[in-house]
């Protein structure tokens, strides 16, 4: 399941949905939250813009790549857009597999590619009221190298 939505999501609901068959031996979930500090500056709010249409296609494509590499029984990707604030949930990726190795790798792979390829953009509002588009991190590009061997 892939969803781009303004609404918040619930960890238990998503976990239960992934835990749907008795073949599943491992569930890995990742949740991304709005931190209060980014690059050393106090953040108060976050606006998330995306490219409707392309976003869903891009996430589907990333999942297909993961499915070609690992044994995935079920998956969920939820990414929120719109106005968020400190400690809000931004993104959820959950993978259900027979074995833990597949679940860990697929979950991290999807997050690493989502971070560098899915068309979302964050705009932060600082504690002092200034707004600033978040810069892409070199580190996120670098994280892809571990999947390219």
């Amino acid at each position, binding site marked *: 399941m892939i969803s781009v939505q303004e609404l918040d999501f619930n960890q238990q609901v998503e976990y239960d949905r992934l835990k749907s068959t008795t073949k599943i031996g491992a569930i890995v979930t990742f949740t991304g939250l709005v931190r209060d500090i980014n690059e050393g500056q106090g953040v108060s709010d976050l606006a998330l813009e995306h490219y409707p249409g392309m976003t869903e296609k891009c996430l589907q494509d990333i999942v297909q790549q993961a499915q070609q590499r690992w044994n995935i029984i079920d998956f969920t990707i939820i990414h929120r857009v719109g106005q968020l604030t400190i400690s809000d949930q931004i993104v959820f990726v959950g993978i259900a597999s027979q074995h833990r190795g597949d679940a860990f790798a697929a979950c991290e792979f999807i997050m690493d590619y989502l971070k560098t390829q899915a068309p979302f*953009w964050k705009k932060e509002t600082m504690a002092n009221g200034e707004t600033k*588009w*978040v810069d892409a991190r070199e580190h996120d590009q670098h994280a892809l190298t571990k999947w390219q061997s």
Partner: protein
Amino acid sequence: MIKVLFFAKLSEQLGVRELQVDAKNAEDTKQLFTHLLNHKTEWASILTSQPCLKAVNQAMVANDVPLKDGDEVAYFPPVTGG
């Protein structure tokens, strides 16, 4: 016509989110980009002063590709979701 979209900081700076460009001014993404550089006075400096990714029909492309009437081309900064 070619539908051209801008997102995030880029759309804020250009002051526009969507634009229609005659397909004869956009036989490929290279020609389209040149056309956009000349669209308004300040556009050349905005579009060339920062990293700018492009997607054709909602798939990112690294190099220049041919365009045809009805295509959708988007320009945006490096992504920062997740």
